[in-house]
């Protein structure tokens, strides 16, 4: 599923600003810096996001600059998440708390100690959890400044746009009907503001237009 295989679902952006003149030298450093890191290498983290090769989600090393596919820059954005079931965390915490209370001969534990136990249990269980991996393709046409991103959920798209900004230091502007209308009027040599003159249509029987 994605841009290379199967069916594609995607949202569209325009890159705000111009491509830096030295992007061929600069982008590889930034892509490597924001490359994906395995959760196994990030102690205590539940989530890891970063760039991987579009043709191989298991390769974050970028030994070559094959992501430059003139005129495109093609990468995948990998999101790994480890989740500890709420009930499992509660059960292990309860066990630890009971053992501690018995050892120390006390009836109640202070909130701060319960939190310490919870953090230690969470960290231990995280090491055992298997991450869930998702990859979303991203293709940036460096000639037209258009970007296609392989997801449509608002939350994920916002996070992606922010990650893109951090990596490339360029803002992404989402493409949607209003911006498309502005662009269409501009290309038709009309004022972009004509887009504001288009009003909603009403099809009801007694509609007042």
């Amino acid at each position: 599923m994605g841009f290379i295989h199967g069916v594609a679902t995607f949202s569209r952006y325009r890159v705000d600003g111009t491509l830096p003149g030295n992007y061929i030298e600069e982008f590889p450093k930034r892509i490597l810096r924001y490359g994906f890191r395995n959760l196994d290498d990030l102690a205590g983290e539940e989530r890891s996001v970063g760039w991987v090769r579009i043709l191989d989600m298991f390769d974050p090393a970028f030994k070559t600059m094959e992501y430059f596919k003139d005129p495109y820059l093609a990468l995948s954005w990998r999101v790994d998440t480890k989740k500890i079931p709420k009930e499992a965390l509660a059960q292990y915490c309860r066990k630890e708390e009971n053992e501690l209370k018995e050892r120390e001969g006390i009836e109640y534990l202070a909130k701060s100690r319960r939190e310490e136990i919870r953090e230690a249990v969470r960290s231990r269980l995280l090491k055992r959890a298997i991450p869930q991996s998702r990859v979303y393709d991203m293709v940036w046409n460096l000639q037209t400044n258009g970007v296609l991103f392989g997801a449509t959920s608002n939350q994920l798209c916002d996070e992606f746009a922010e990650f893109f900004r951090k990596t490339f230091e360029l803002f992404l502007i989402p493409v949607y009907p209003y911006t498309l209308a502005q662009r269409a009027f501009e290309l038709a040599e009309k004022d972009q503001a004509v887009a504001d003159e288009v009003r909603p249509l009403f099809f009801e029987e007694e509609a007042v237009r």
Partner: protein
Amino acid sequence: MSVLDEVREHEFLGRDFLVWLWCKSETLDGVFDLGDEGEVELWFEGKITLRSDGERSAQTITCTGENARIREARFALREAKKVTSARLHIKEGRDEWSFELDSTWMNFHSLKLPRILQEKGEDPDALFYQRMFLLEKAVALMDALFSRYLEARVSPTWETEEFPALMTWIHEGVLP
């Protein structure tokens, strides 16, 4: 104004475009002349989602399949229901694309591209370039159709010819 507010304020642009496109696809034999982008055939593949904004909750109707259900969906427009997405099929020459387009963002969902014949051992980049060409082509065709709609929408004949014709189609299923 945030992007999300702006998107919501102008979401009628996408849903009115889909109604216009639906009307044209049923009444022009589905053929659109897109100038530089050439001539394309477009039809609705039988899945249209409509939504009505009630005072307390929104109601969603999805019409799939038979003509009778699609006719029902068209009638629903008269009851203030708005098109929120539709499954479209575009044919240009020998290439065909099929996808769902939502009206709020005009994002593509489950886009099926024309079949690419790949030879064994072929450079994977060749597949990438062919797929990107076809993806961008689908986007360009939809943008060209949207431009056609906007052109009609701001033309002096919208109020006197285009809109009355659209209303006749909604009510009677044919153009005057």
